């Protein structure tokens, strides 16, 4: 009897809390999409920001992506590259070009300078470009941890096939079925990119103790019974079950994230995410005094 009750509870679908369509924002010269933070969706604790660039089609001799040397402290900026390539450099000495299907996961911790640029080769040749950057917050006890960069190419990220291989789930971190991702998340975050053909079905189990978020980059699908027909939609869930099922009507692409809510005060300005205003002021002072290192453009 106990086993049956437990099984029933585990298999219950999480109901949809909200579907939030991203708004366009201007970031310097670029127009990008931001489902949160927004008036409709402040954050999905521990995820505090999602920026979606593209999809763009750049001509030859372009100057795609130009985020010159800048600092971060107190969180993890993570970039998922869906097409194109991103050249990352930082004051830890990393110099890493990650291509389509790869991920750049940086734990900024106590402070680091990095740059995120298009590559010389991409600038010369042009092509399709689409990336997502997510800011994953760190709890107070980890905000000043040592910085770490993890970069993985597509072929180092394992795939779980579902529905006769019409669905491919790339496991960046966490575990789907028996497959684990290569990223070591210090806060236990799970991250998958999901590629679905038309008329396919994907399903996976979420952790009841964590907050999941599904972002549909493009396509049209039914997620746990709710129609999501507009691309660039963030889907958030209630904590009343564990299962997520996606039925794609058209070819569709998703980013899934899941993490433990931190539930601490957030003080954010510019490139820093701390708990208090005083810590933010300290971050700016430390940056200006060169304590986060020097990285030449």
């Amino acid at each position, binding site marked *: 009897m106990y086993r049956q009750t437990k099984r029933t509870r585990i298999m219950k679908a999480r109901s949809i809390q909200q579907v939030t369509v991203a708004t366009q924002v201007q*970031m*310097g010269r670029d127009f990008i999409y931001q489902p949160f933070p927004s008036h409709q969706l402040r954050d999905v604790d521990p995820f505090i920001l999602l920026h979606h660039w593209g999809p763009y089609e750049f001509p030859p001799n372009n100057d795609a992506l130009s985020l010159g*040397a*800048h600092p971060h402290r107190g969180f993890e900026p993570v970039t998922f590259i869906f097409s194109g390539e991103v050249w990352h450099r930082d004051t830890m000495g990393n110099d890493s070009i990650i291509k389509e299907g790869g991920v750049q996961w940086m734990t900024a911790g106590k402070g680091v300078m990095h740059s995120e640029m298009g590559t010389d080769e991409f600038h010369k040749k042009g092509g399709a470009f689409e990336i997502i950057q997510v*800011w994953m917050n760190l709890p107070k006890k980890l905000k000043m941890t040592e910085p770490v960069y993890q970069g993985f190419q597509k072929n180092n990220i394992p795939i779980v096939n579902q529905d006769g291989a019409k669905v491919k789930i790339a496991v960046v971190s966490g575990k789907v079925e028996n497959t684990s991702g290569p990223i070591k998340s210090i806060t236990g975050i799970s991250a998958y990119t999901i590629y679905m053909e038309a008329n396919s079905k994907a399903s996976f189990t979420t952790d009841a103790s964590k907050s999941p978020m599904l972002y549909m980059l493009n396509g049209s699908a039914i997620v746990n019974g709710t129609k999501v027909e507009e691309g660039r939609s963030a889907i958030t869930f209630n904590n009343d079950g564990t299962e997520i099922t996606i039925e794609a009507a058209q070819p569709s692409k998703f980013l899934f994230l899941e993490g433990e809510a931190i539930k601490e005060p957030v*003080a954010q300005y*510019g490139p820093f995410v701390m708990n208090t*205003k005083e810590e933010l002021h300290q971050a700016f002072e430390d940056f200006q005094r060169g304590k986060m290192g020097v990285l030449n453009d």
Partner: protein
Amino acid sequence: MKEEAILKNLSKHINLTKEEKEFFISFLHYKKLAKGEILLNYSEICKQQYFVISGCLRNYSIDEYGKEHILVFAQTDWWTSDLYSYVTETPAENIIDALMDTEVFEMRKDDMEKVFERVPKFERFFRILFQNAMVNSMKRLSSSMSIPAEERYQAFIKQYPTIYQQIPLKHIASYLGISPEFLSKIRNKLAHAS
């Protein structure tokens, strides 16, 4: 006398008696800022209007990727503040700092109200000041959407004739919303054309 500068500025729009001038001056607070010093930090509530006696201030924000976006420069003989924070009394989203050694007079919002009440002609002065600021920001918004960068740079020189050569190129580029490299090209082109 530093007060002379602000009285001369007031005389552009209103005539004051000796007593009215003295009353106004009694509320001014003098402040000297070193280059790079912050006058108003983000998250603080802006409770003052500032008058620039000498030097130059800039009002800017910083985006998530550390890039500075300059909204306005306030040069000698200009009034400035973070109007959004000042009016709504909510934390500032921008920063005001000194681009060079700068001297200012501060006037607190509650003192300003006292001045308005006792000498209503100051309401006329600040009405004109704010309507000019409104026109300028409308013009800036409109030109950023439709005017080529080269013309916007020329308009910038016209608006900041005394200071533009002292402002670093990267800050002017940020104000114009273009890259420093692109601004260099524009400057070279204009230098060769003249």
